[in-house]
């Protein structure tokens, strides 16, 4: 396996990075990831009618479906991002974050936000906004948290002198976008804007949460970690500029493509479709830039496990975006909207791209955080292959399921035919999901053993 996943005993720079905090963020992230996997499993079992926990209010698959997505967005991705930012930003700017106590306060507050969201959803307090089911009384607190995150990280960035590295463009923009997106999506459609125009805003929210919170943080981290791991600079600075500014301009204009053929004015739908195709062109430049960077060091994909996670994620990212540019056309939408095709697409983005990147970062950082190597390199490999294999099967399977469902519906056969016809696909999906869960179990166990081993090892570092 990799040399990059090995702890090389570099000097601790604890004045810059609070390693304990980074580790705690990762542990919180992994915990919520496990919760989310359980939610997905329950829903998968429900669809194939094998749910052994039928009829229990607190275990209702509908509620756990919302926990599944919210735990991924706010519990897993957000925590893993925050942990990675606490590593990357101080090391890039050579300055610590604004306030160490504030960092820990934000950590606690964010865990409270996520836990309260889960409890609220379980108790039937969900908000009717996709990806934002956070109960309405948590929204203001989450906004305060996001604001403090921005303040805490902007302090070192503001003091940095000289030209800013690409990573920091993405991070700075993400701090502004995440706050604005969360405020817009959670407040406007709930309190002020009803109906169709509220739907337009909900579309912006769904999309911006992926495009303006997860995507810029993810790419920012890739621009930081990939050159470090490959020990060479990013291929083209010019393409970095095109990628960032193209994303900044076109991504926010995409939102309404989630609600094509609704009563939202048609010219706005056309606009969203065109902007989405434009995003695909931008994405291509970014992917070219990263493949230009690894050109000549291709073997790193075999030997360097974090790099393998990163570049697998980038291949999936390209597939996702290419798929997006096609499925967003009205012709394609007529067939696949509302089907499992979209569910497959969502899993490819959230798991195959951003989760892969964050897992890669954890694979690289955890030995550096705890001061000893991974307990088992073999389990690291299993983690990768079960995740990538399971996801690939799930993606293809749900894509096919989506097309079958679309044709069943258009044929005007009774609805039940489409449900019965989906069963084989849902059964395959269940097993693909179990493979993914198996991969994460390898990860959790490996992490647990590594942490236990590090307790004895930390004495000498």
């Amino acid at each position, binding site marked *: 396996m990799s040399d990059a996943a090995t702890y090389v005993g570099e000097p601790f720079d604890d004045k810059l990075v609070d390693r304990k905090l980074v580790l705690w963020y990762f542990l919180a992230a992994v915990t919520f990831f496990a919760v989310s996997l359980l939610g997905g499993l329950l829903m998968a079992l429900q669809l194939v009618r094998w749910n052994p926990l039928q*009829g229990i209010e607190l275990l209702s698959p509908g509620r756990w479906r919302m926990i599944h997505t919210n735990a991924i967005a706010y519990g897993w991705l957000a925590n893993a991002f925050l942990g990675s930012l606490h590593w990357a930003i101080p090391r890039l700017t050579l300055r610590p974050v604004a306030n160490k106590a504030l960092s820990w306060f934000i950590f606690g507050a964010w865990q409270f936000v996520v836990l309260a969201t889960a409890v609220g959803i379980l108790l039937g307090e969900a908000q*009717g906004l996709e990806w934002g089911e956070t109960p309405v009384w948590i929204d203001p607190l989450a906004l305060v948290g996001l604001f403090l995150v921005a303040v805490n990280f902007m302090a070192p960035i503001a003091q940095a002198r000289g030209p800013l590295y690409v990573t920091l463009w993405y991070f700075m923009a993400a701090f502004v976008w995440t706050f604005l997106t969360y405020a817009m999506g959670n407040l406007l459609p709930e309190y002020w*804007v009803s109906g169709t125009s*509220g739907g337009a805003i909900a579309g912006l929210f*769904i999309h911006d949460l992926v495009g303006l919170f997860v995507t810029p943080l993810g790419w920012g981290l890739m621009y930081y970690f990939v050159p470090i791991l490959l020990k060479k600079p990013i291929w083209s600075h010019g393409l970095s500029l095109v990628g960032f500014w193209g994303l900044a301009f076109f991504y926010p204009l995409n939102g309404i493509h989630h609600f094509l*053929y609704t009563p939202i004015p048609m010219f706005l739908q056309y*606009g969203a479709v065109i902007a989405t195709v434009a995003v695909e062109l931008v994405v291509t430049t970014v992917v070219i830039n990263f493949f230009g960077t690894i050109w000549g060091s291709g073997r790193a994909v075999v030997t360097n496990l974090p790099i393998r996670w990163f570049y697998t994620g980038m291949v999936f990212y390209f597939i996702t975006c290419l798929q997006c540019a096609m499925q967003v056309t009205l012709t394609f939408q007529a067939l696949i*909207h509302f089907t499992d095709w979209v569910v497959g697409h969502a899993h490819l983005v959230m798991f195959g791209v951003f989760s892969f990147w964050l897992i890669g970062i954890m694979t690289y950082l955890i030995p550096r955080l705890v001061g000893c190597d991974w307990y088992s390199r073999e389990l690291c490999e299993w983690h990768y292959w079960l995740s990538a294999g399971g996801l690939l099967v799930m993606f293809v399977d749900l894509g096919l399921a989506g097309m079958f469902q*679309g044709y069943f519906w258009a044929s005007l056969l009774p609805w039940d035919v489409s449900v019965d016809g989906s069963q084989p696909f849902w059964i395959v999906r269940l097993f693909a999901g179990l493979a993914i869960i198996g991969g994460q179990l390898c990860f959790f166990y490996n992490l647990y053993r590594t942490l236990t081993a590090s307790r004895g090892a930390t004495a000498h570092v």
Partner: protein
Amino acid sequence: MFESKSGVLLIGGLGFFLLAFVSNALVPIRMYQNMPEQTVQQLVNENLLYQFEDLHKRYPESFEAAYGKPPADEAAQPEWYRAKCADALILGRKSYVAEGCWHCHSQFVRPVSREAERWGEVSKSWEYQNELQRPVMFGTRRVGPDLTREGGRRSNDWHTVHFFRPTMVSEGSPMPEYPWFFDGDPNRPNARGLGLITYVQWLGSWLESYPYYEQFQPMATVNTGDDDEQ
């Protein structure tokens, strides 16, 4: 400008976000500003009241446990039913959101994929300009059918049994069971159950073509080849 802090923060972070907000959110808000939002009380219509009073007739004990007895004065009864029906809609919508119904059922009929033949007329903007669509319940996935024309299509007792155990009336349905909407028996829906059924019966009750029945054809004729699709 393109690599400076102020450029990234003001043009990328703030500027482009606001551009998208103005063009994609403020434009439709301005377009519909003359279409005022209806209150829940205004949404209660005769079609829905028929279903709501039917719930009282079918499940008198449960209904009165949830809403009390109607006033003895017959002249005051219509107002009373209207007020209670609005309450039921609010509670019903809360359950619809809380249970994630909207993640498996959409609420809009598209002008494509022959949806108007299956469900009824294509959805219009004015149908969503009300308090119960805040946030709007368009939905993004259909495991089960679209519900926006569901009102009046099936009877209240079909719905009680279906919520209690979907497979009893819809064989092979993957929909979860919702026994917590009942006091142990499909004939005893509780306040939440009555609310949810009222909400479902409301969907589409505002249309002239209400209720809309699917144009079922025997499967043999679908496949004969003289169908306009083929």
